[in-house]
C-alpha cells in the first residue's frame, strides 16, 4: 500500500499518485458512514488526536474533529493564536507539551509556510498539515479531487481552471501538485499581480482573461479572495476584481456543458462567485464539505489505524 509508511502528511508535492488513489478509495466507504444513522465505527478507539490551529478556521477544524469522532478517536482542540505564540511559549515547547500528553496525531494550521514541517521534525506524533501560509493545504486538495472524481468518474486528463489569488493560495498549490499527478491540464487565472510568472514552471498555463481560461474546462475551482490583498495594493478594488473575475452564468458558456464548480469556502458571494453559480447544479460546494470529512476520515484511518512498527515479520 505505501501510505502507511508516511509519518506525516505535509503536502501533496511529496505524495505519489498511488498514495492519493489509496486515500480517495478509502474515503468512499468513509462517506457511506457519514450518511448512516449510526455515524461511528470503532476502528480508532483508544487513539487520540489534537487540532492546533494558529489561524482561525471553523470548517476545517470542525471537519477534522468530527472525522476523528466518527472513527472513535478522542479529539481535542487546542485554542491558540499566533500572537500568544510570538509573546509566550515557543512552538517547539507547545508541541512537546502536547506530545507528552499522549496524542498520536496532531493537525496543525499556521499562517507561516513550513511550520508543519518544523513541527513534524520536532515530534514523534504524526502531523497533518491543515494549511500552512501560502504553501500547501493538502486535505483541501484531496477533497477537491475526491469531489471531482465522484462527479466525473475519473481524474485523468481533465481540464481544470483555478481562479483567483494564485500567488498566496495554498489551495491552488496543493491542487496543482495533486491534479498534475493525474495528467490534468491545470490552468490558473487571475489578475497579473496575483499570478506569479514562474508558476508555469509547475506545468500549468496562466491566463489573465477568465473567458479564455474557461474554454472547454471540465472543472472550475474558484478561490476565496482575501480583502487584505487589496489593502496592500495587489488590485485596486473588490469591485474591479468582481468585474474581471467573478464567476457568473455567462462564463460557464465557455466551459463544457457538464462543468463542475468548486469553492473551498467560505464564499464571498458577489466578489469571486455570483449567487446564481453558487446555488446552481454545477456547484458542489456543500458536498465538498461532506467530502472533506470523508477524506479526513480516510487519512486519519490510514495514518493511525493499526501500528506498523511493532511487527517483526
Amino acid at each position, binding site marked *: *500500500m505505501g501510505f*502507511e509508511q508516511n509519518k506525516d502528511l505535509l503536502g501533496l508535492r511529496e505524495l505519489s499518485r498511488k498514495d492519493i488513489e*489509496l486515500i480517495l*478509495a*478509502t474515503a*468512499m*466507504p*468513509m462517506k*457511506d*458512514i457519514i450518511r*448512516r*444513522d*449510526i455515524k*461511528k*465505527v*470503532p*476502528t480508532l478507539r483508544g487513539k487520540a488526536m489534537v487540532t492546533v490551529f494558529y489561524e482561525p478556521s471553523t470548517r476545517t477544524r470542525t471537519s477534522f474533529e468530527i472525522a476523528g469522532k466518527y*472513527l472513535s478517536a478522542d479529539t481535542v482542540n487546542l485554542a491558540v493564536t499566533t500572537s500568544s505564540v510570538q509573546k509566550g511559549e515557543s512552538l517547539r515547547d507547545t508541541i512537546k507539551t502536547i506530545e507528552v500528553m499522549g496524542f498520536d496525531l496532531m493537525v496543525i494550521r499556521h499562517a507561516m509556510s513550513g511550520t508543519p514541517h518544523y513541527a513534524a521534525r520536532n515530534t514523534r506524533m504524526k502531523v497533518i498539515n491543515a494549511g500552512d501560509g501560502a504553501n500547501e493545504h493538502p486535505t483541501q486538495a484531496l477533497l477537491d479531487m475526491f469531489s471531482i472524481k465522484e462527479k466525473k468518474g475519473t481524474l485523468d486528463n481533465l481540464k481544470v481552471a483555478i481562479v483567483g489569488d494564485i500567488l498566496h493560495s495554498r489551495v491552488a498549490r496543493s491542487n496543482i501538485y495533486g491534479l498534475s499527478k493525474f495528467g490534468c491540464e491545470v490552468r490558473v487565472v487571475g489578475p497579473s499581480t496575483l499570478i506569479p510568472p514562474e508558476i508555469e514552471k509547475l506545468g500549468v498555463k496562466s491566463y489573465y482573461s477568465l473567458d479564455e481560461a474557461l474554454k472547454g474546462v471540465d472543472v472550475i475551482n474558484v478561490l476565496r479572495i482575501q480583502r487584505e490583498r487589496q489593502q496592500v495594493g495587489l488590485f485596486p478594488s473588490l469591485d474591479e476584481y468582481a468585474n474581471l473575475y467573478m464567476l457568473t452564468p455567462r462564463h460557464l458558456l465557455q466551459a463544457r456543458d457538464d462543468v463542475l464548480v468548486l469553492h473551498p469556502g467560505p464564499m464571498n458571494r458577489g466578489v469571486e462567485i455570483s449567487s446564481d453559480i453558487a446555488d446552481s447544479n454545477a456547484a458542489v460546494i456543500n458536498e465538498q464539505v461532506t467530502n472533506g470529512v470523508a477524506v479526513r476520515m*480516510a487519512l486519519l*484511518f*490510514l495514518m493511525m*489505524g*493499526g*501500528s*506498523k512498527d*511493532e*511487527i517483526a*515479520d
Partner: protein
Amino acid sequence: MQLRDKNVIMDEMAMKRALTRIAHEIIEKNKGVDNVAVVGIRRRGGPLAQRLAARIQEIEGVNVPVGILDITLYRDDLTTLSSQPQVHRTEVDFAISGMNIVLVDDVLYTGRTIRAALDALMDLGRPRAIQLAVLIDRGHRELPIKADFIGKNVPTSRQEVISVLVKEIDSKDEVVIQEIIDT
C-alpha cells in the same frame, strides 16, 4: 511465511452441493424466506452470499436481498497485521431492521471476524435475528460463536491454513488445506 499445499478438501461439485444444502437449511429454519436477507463478509463471503441467494431463488422463486459487509473498520487485530488492509465499501442497500440476516463467510476460525461483522451489522440497523452460514468450520474458537449452517467441519491444527477459492475472485472453486512451513 511459506505455505505448502496438503490436500484438496472440496472441489467444485462438493462446494456446490454444500451451498445447495445450506440454502435448503436456511429456508427450512426460517420457514420460508419472506423476511430473510443474505449478507456476505468481504471478500470471499461476498460471492458465497450471492450464490446462496441464487440457490434460494431457484428453490423458492423468491429474490432475497443480498449485501456485502466490509468489516475492516471493526477489526480488533489491525495492530497485529503486518500491512494495513484497504477499506472497501459496505454494500447493504436495504434496511436490515426487523429482518432475519444470514451472515455468510468462507471459513469460521477464531470467531473474531464474526464478532466484528456482528458489530458492523448492528451499526446498520436492528435486525430481528442474525444467523451464521460458513462453508468451512475449522475449530479453534476464541469467542463464544457458533455457526447455524456449516458446509463442512474440518478438524485442523493451528499450523494449517484453509484457503477457500471462488471463481469470482480466484477463477476456480476449490477448498485446500495448506501447511505453514517455517523457514
